[in-house]
């Protein structure tokens, strides 16, 4: 195993199952919400929405039922941190979900596990059974008569777009995983039309530590705007690929050193939907205020052909677009065609520039995050590596 488990100061710091639930139950809901707000925790899935705002809105909503959903549909190319958390740190995730249930007044939690991780399901279910035996799940949790909470695990079926929260909810309701129009937002009208919070696996893990150790402790790590630490899934050209816990705001160059990357030409931050940075930008920082990401870091050394890399990403998006809206459905195909034209030397700069404009239109006009971010690699790779890409194509 190349995993860095147990090597970080926040997420991987010491924790014993149930501790944070016990503490949360001695607090009022308002106190929990304040603690999380104080911590300035933002969603770890990549979008970076303040967790406390999401929770406050759904806590304030009045309804007979509410839901807590854990988004374990990590499908971003180059991301595997949730796999590690699910396998080795389930106590962090489930305790976080129980705390969420208590805080917003929900009785049901659902883990939406990506179909590719089906082999983890049994293990997670038997973990949930243990929690029931310990009275950390089920009826009257830790003898608190007013608090029942249960968690079930549901499997995805191989659709990247279901990582988008409204598409995920559609999928749970038994429909095609197509993103919904917003508003209404899931915090009010989510699963089965009820108030629902959807958080990433890593976000729940962070909440558990924040409740246990306090927001001040959490804020010691990271930057003012991006507090705490972040798990990074590192793959590509380096000696030690794996999951790393690093403080928010770390420079890319530092990360490259830690993972043993040599002759690095480019780093893709945020997976296929992220942006590709050249050497000249390696002093930038990994944080919401500079280069945000859900944690995927893919490293390319001098030997790699960036046009091929881009082609791989665009093929991915053509396959994964849900097809619901035109900018994304047609746009991705056009961008891929553009890549193929460059590859065969059959292009004009005029047309390529038009495609970049199309990319910008897609960013604005697509309905969900997939189509809004899929032009990112197209624009960033063609701009940052234009010399390599266009000079080489003249020789072919």
């Amino acid at each position: 195993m190349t995993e860095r488990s147990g090597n970080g100061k926040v997420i991987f710091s010491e924790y014993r199952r149930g501790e944070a639930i016990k503490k949360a139950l001695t607090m009022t809901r308002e106190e929990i919400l304040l603690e999380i707000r104080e911590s300035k925790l933002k969603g770890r899935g990549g979008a970076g929405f303040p967790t406390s705002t999401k929770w406050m809105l759904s806590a304030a909503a009045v309804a007979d039922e509410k839901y807590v959903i854990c988004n374990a549909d990590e499908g971003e190319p180059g991301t595997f941190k949730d796999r590690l958390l699910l396998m080795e740190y389930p106590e962090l995730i489930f305790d976080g979900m129980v705390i969420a249930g208590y805080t917003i007044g929900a009785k049901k939690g659902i883990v939406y596990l990506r179909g590719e991780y089906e082999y983890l399901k049994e293990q997670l279910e038997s973990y949930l059974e243990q929690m029931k035996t310990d009275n950390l799940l089920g009826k009257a949790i830790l003898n608190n008569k007013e608090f029942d909470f249960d968690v079930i695990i549901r499997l995805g079926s191989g659709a990247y777009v279901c990582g988008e929260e409204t598409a995920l909810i559609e999928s749970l309701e038994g429909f095609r995983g197509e993103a919904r129009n917003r508003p209404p937002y899931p915090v009010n009208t989510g699963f089965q039309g009820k108030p629902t919070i959807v958080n990433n696996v890593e976000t729940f893990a962070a909440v558990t530590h924040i409740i246990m150790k306090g927001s001040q402790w959490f804020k010691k790590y990271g930057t003012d705007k991006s507090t705490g630490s972040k798990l990074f899934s590192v793959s590509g050209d380096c000696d030690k690929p794996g999951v790393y816990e690093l403080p928010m705001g770390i420079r890319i160059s530092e990360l490259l050193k830690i993972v043993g990357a040599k002759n690095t030409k480019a780093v893709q931050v945020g997976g296929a939907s992220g942006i590709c940075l050249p050497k000249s930008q390696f002093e930038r920082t990994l944080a919401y205020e500079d280069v945000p990401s859900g944690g995927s870091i893919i490293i390319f050394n001098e030997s790699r052909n960036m046009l091929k890399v881009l082609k791989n990403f665009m093929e991915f998006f053509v396959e994964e677009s849900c097809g619901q809206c035109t900018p994304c459905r047609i746009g991705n195909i056009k961008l891929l065609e553009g890549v193929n034209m460059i590859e065969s030397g059959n292009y004009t700069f005029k047309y390529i520039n038009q495609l970049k404009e199309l990319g910008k239109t897609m960013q604005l006009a697509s309905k969900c995050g997939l189509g809004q971010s899929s032009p990112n690699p197209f624009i960033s790779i063609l701009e940052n590596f234009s010399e390599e890409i266009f000079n080489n194509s003249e020789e072919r």
Partner: protein
Amino acid sequence: MLVLEKNTMTEEIEKLVEKYGNLRSSLLPILQEIQSVHKYIPDFAQQEVARLLNIHPVEVYSVISFYTFLNTKPKGRYLVRLCKTISCDMQGKQAIARAIERELGISFGETTKDNKFTLEYINCLGMCDKGPAMLINNKVYTKLTPEKAIQIINEIQ
């Protein structure tokens, strides 16, 4: 489909509906179970699921066609899915693909004559630090070399 087979299938689906409930939100888990037993979701099963959940068969088909892991045509008993996304690609997915194709005598997208293996590509499996990676049914195999991949396939043979 023979009447007898139809009856067994109906019974099977009734059990699933009992287990998950007859709500629309049970649709995916029910389809997933049918898929994992039969390796595909036959037309008749689609009709039965639709009937028991009280939705239109077209709706069932439309859901199946959306998800990569669900399909309406038979596939081999072992579904070999090799990751083709960037990290696995850089770690030599191409060599693995060619080796498996040679060994089984089929191309990606095809099924062997004895119905034992179907070859497909898949997008990122979340094993990018240990690529190239593949799934065979639900089991994941990592750090493949052409030799290792063939050995795994031969052990199944």
